């Protein structure tokens, strides 16, 4: 495979993602948990990934960083916002994408794209973490369920409890009181996921829900959340492969653009 090598690094709140592109094709991706003290630094991860692919650091044409910690990557030539990177990453997989919803750990963003994949408008969640991935993580600890299986378990719930979504701390208290009242764990989970979906759906309504809607970010791996959003919207939503690395992929794709006209 020939072509220039571009790297994207997405420094999120809970994880750092790295994507390497060669000639516009995905060569390698990696996700490192931010809280893991054993986790590689982005630079070490990139070096290892390049070595595995038989490439050297010098062969990288351009590196773009994105995410909340994008300014902490010294080897990145440029930075790009999450909105632009997720849109570009989603458009790479699905050129039909006109609305992209990125459900990240502490941020949810909805972007409206034109037919060229350019962002024409975006909206973000308010400062509070309610309705984001962090909210789900808090609840997963309370319910003693792994974050990965939350969505599947919620899909099997016989019913759905009502949980408010406007404050993570209050919602946590609500969940604890529901447990004390003996409500089913699965129904509580279904209620929590519904609450997150409602918050995210508000953003989709604000931006104007235009098909095709594409979900990105770690939250989009949750099948319960996807189903709840689809029910609210009344249409199917698409999830790209490895949705959590879409920001890094988008950043690497921006590298291809910026290396031409930095």
């Amino acid at each position: 495979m020939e072509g220039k090598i571009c790297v994207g690094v997405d420094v999120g709140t809970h994880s750092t993602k790295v994507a390497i592109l060669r000639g516009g094709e995905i060569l390698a991706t990696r996700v490192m948990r931010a809280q893991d003290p054993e986790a590689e630094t982005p630079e070490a991860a990139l070096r290892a990934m390049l070595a595995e692919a038989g490439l050297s650091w010098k062969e990288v044409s351009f590196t773009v960083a994105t995410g909340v910690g994008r300014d902490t990557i010294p080897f990145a030539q440029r930075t790009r916002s999450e909105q632009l990177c997720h849109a570009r990453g989603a458009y790479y997989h699905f050129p039909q994408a006109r609305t992209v919803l990125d459900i990240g750990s502490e941020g949810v963003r909805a972007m409206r794209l034109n037919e060229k994949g350019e962002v024409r408008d975006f909206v973000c969640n308010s400062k509070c973490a309610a309705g984001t991935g962090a909210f789900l993580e808090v609840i997963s600890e309370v319910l003693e369920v792994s974050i990965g299986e939350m969505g599947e378990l919620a899909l099997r719930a016989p019913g759905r409890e009502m949980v408010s979504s406007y404050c993570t701390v209050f919602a946590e208290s609500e969940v604890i009181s529901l447990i004390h009242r003996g409500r089913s764990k699965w129904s509580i989970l279904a209620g929590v996921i519904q609450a997150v979906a409602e918050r995210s759906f508000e953003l989709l309504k604000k931006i104007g829900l235009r098909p095709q809607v594409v979900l990105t970010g770690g939250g989009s791996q949750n099948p319960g959340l996807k189903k709840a959003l689809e029910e609210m919207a009344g249409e199917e939503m698409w999830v790209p492969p490895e949705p959590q690395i879409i920001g890094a992929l988008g950043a690497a794709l921006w590298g291809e653009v910026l290396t031409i006209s930095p």
Partner: protein
Amino acid sequence: MIEEFEKTIQDRHQAAMQWKEANQKKVFGYLCCLTPETILHAADVLPVRIFGSPEKLQVADEHLVPYGCRYAASCLDLAARGVYDYLDGVVIPNSCDLISKLEYWWKELVPRKGPTLAGVELCPYVLYIAYPEKRTGRKVLDYYKHELREFKQALERGLRREITDEDLSRAIAVYNEHYQLMGQLKELRKRSPLPISGSEAWQIEYASQLMPKEQHNRLLKGQLDQLSQGTKAASGVRIFLSASATDVVNARLYQIIEKAGGQVVSEDISCHTSYYGNTIQTNGDPLTAIAQHSLEIDCPRSTETCSPATYPYPTSRWDRTRSRLEGYNAQGAIFYIINYCECRAIEYPYLRDKIREELDIPVLLLQGDYSLEGLEQVRGRIEAFVEMIGG
């Protein structure tokens, strides 16, 4: 930027106190653009705008509702902590709901008596101006003229001096020169490349509300001469900024926009001197001219939405907003609305839709709590917005 502007901005309180000491004259503080500064100037008083501070509230929080504008609360908080003790008087117009209530709270938390004669207070320390709710109508001018006459008489009693028509005309001349010079600055900001950055233009505007207008006019003239030569250029995505309150929080907003690759080329900011688009008429009764001019102020508090049954849309605000966008070739519009600022929040959806539909310009809404930390949380959105436009 001019050193004197910077010096005044860096310590506005010190600058006012020094002026007072050097000139042995009175300094009055005022809230909002609705205050008729010219009458204070005619009385030989230095009017300085009362601003807040992004510091945490220490006193006012105990007294004001939590669901109120933090900017207004901060102004009161500084007063209650003695920061504004150098003021010889305070003028509060009934602009928005919370500012109107500050008259009461100012008296409560800063209990100072105005000058007295034989034990009788001649003029209250806090002067209230009942600006009309509706700015148009058969009797509005008469009413407001009467209100301003009472305000003038209170000042005359308190200062023990007459404010003659000649005094008013002299003040009008100084302020008209100021409006004209600020108009020239606005014209320069229409140019491309931009001869002055948004934050430098902000400094000029901010300083104009804190220093004597004669001094500001003199300094600005020199600055305009330099700028018109076009030796400097500021680059970036051209942004229109609409925001509550003009002070250090807004200053940080300008910096964030510039760091993200944008430049503010025009604005619509509460209590900005830019509100005075027109000059005051110089033929006829000066007090009538001041009242007329004041009634033309384009403030979100005084839109047609004050009478929603008759005028559901703030059309006059749209006309002005349109002119602030079109002539300046703005590529994007940012609205920064302080939480609970209902005047701006009410008009926002209409203005946003008009900007998008008629001008095809993207709009970004930011909401804040009047803190510098709060601005850091919207930094990412500003960066994304500027990138979205600039590519």
